[in-house]
């Protein structure tokens, strides 16, 4: 019990951050009308591609002679880019169609 309490209080910054971000997410998404849910889904999909930043950091922090790390990092960056670029482009394509009217 005391562990949990002190954990919460030590990480309060993070907890507030998480809570507020969740609130923002929920509030913002709640306002999106059904007709835009498919583009919203793919737009959100593109945003979680932000994980690519982790992959870049891994690459930057790895030793240059650690071939395995370099290869895996390389793959991770490719995958992350796919997620980001593909996500945004496909969302844009969908929304372009909505905009015409």
């Amino acid at each position, binding site marked *: 019990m005391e562990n949990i309490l002190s954990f919460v209080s030590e990480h309060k910054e993070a907890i507030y951050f998480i809570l507020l971000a969740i609130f923002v997410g929920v509030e913002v998404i709640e306002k*999106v009308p059904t007709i835009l849910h498919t*583009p919203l889904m793919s737009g959100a999909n593109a945003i979680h591609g932000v994980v690519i930043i982790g992959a870049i950091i891994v690459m930057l922090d790895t030793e240059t002679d650690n071939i395995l790390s370099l290869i895996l990092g390389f793959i991770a960056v*490719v995958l992350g880019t796919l997620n980001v670029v593909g996500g945004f482009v*496909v969302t844009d394509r969908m929304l372009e169609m909505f905009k015409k009217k």
Partner: protein
Amino acid sequence: MGQHILEICYLIASVTFIFGLKMMSNPKTARKGNMVAAVGMTIAILGTIFLYESSKTSRESLKLILIFAAIAIGTVIGWMTAKRVQMTKMPELVSMFNGMGGACAALIGLMEYHHNVGNINTLLPTVLGMVIGSVSFAGSVIAFLKLNGTMDKPIRLPSYNILNTIVLVGVLALCGYLIFSDVENSPLLYGLFACALIYGVMFVIPIGGADMPVVISLLNSFTGLAAAFGGFLYDNKVMLTGGILVGSAGTLLTIVMCNAMNRSLSSVIFGAFGKSSAAGGGSNTEGGSIKDISVSDLAVLMNYSKKVVIVPGYGLAVAHAQHIIHELELLLEERGVEVKYAIHPVAGRMPGHMNVLLAESNVDYGKLVEMEEINPEFDQTDVVLVVGANDVVNPAAKSDPASPIFGMPILEVDKAKHIIVNKRSMSAGYAGIDNLLFYDPKTSMFFGDAKKALTSLVSELKAMS
């Protein structure tokens, strides 16, 4: 200094994510919102490449070349795929890109593990990010295959849920052990990785292909979570913001979809639907006779109608009939017929599916009428043309409390003077239940693939003038 600028880049990116999502709430600003988020993402990525600094960071040209090469490859492939894919393949595409993100998170976890053993504050997010990313990856791949048709039957071993739970418990136990044991144990890490992949596969395999949109939305929020764990690992605010935003957005969308279908999330995941549909519902099949209509009769009927309402459904998407239906609409309007589309909130397989499809074929936005608005209009409608829709016009939702879709609001097409239903056979739709509408004396069936059937209807109509 660089570090400070990087923090500001991240701040800007976080704000663009929020604003981008916010702008998505309006069709007018949605596209710009997507752009805004994309710009923010670019800033965050470039900032990281050039400004990130930790005790281990080095920028040998080999690394930079590799990074840019990877980005170039990803960009080209992602761009091409996204530009080329057909609009009807959207769900597949989203699930594929989602899987990529999950895999990226999993790889990060695998590589970071040995750097973080001993420091529980960073080990925890490392391991959890890896596990969730892997589940999301494996699940997305299966979802993709299912949507694709490659794997089209739900596979359901006996006592499936027990098996599934066992794997899940195993994954959790391994997680706990790795996180709290404080000793580096790479084989176990790979074991955990494998288990997580297996769990991802087992999680999605029993779910029917048609439930995939819900699953994808859920997996979407999983990947968001994995990204957020990455944020904790690196104390990186933009990963945190982005990840949490997507995590909550995905969860909310999942719930919205389930509500619109009048089902619970657990019934989607544990497949209660598939079972009950096989058993119940079919009790009325013998209940009446059905009537056919020929293309020429239908053409005459429509030509001399005053008001036609088109009800598009999943079949329209499958048959890629969105362009030909627009042609039909224009043709009828030329002849002085008033044409509207009735859009059910869960018609098709994704929320807003029909809007996306019809927008693609340039149908005028104002002609797409939502359910609540169009329902009172059906009794002044001469012909309702149901194209590849089934559940969304099933009167059992209103009249039969035993029906699995009972309580779901439907389009009340049976109030119209004539009901024409186009589908390929008498087989059931998504919910797997029979539809009494087809036996209504006012209903005529117009069998055939939507695209072919409508094409013949259009040429018949053209020939008539």
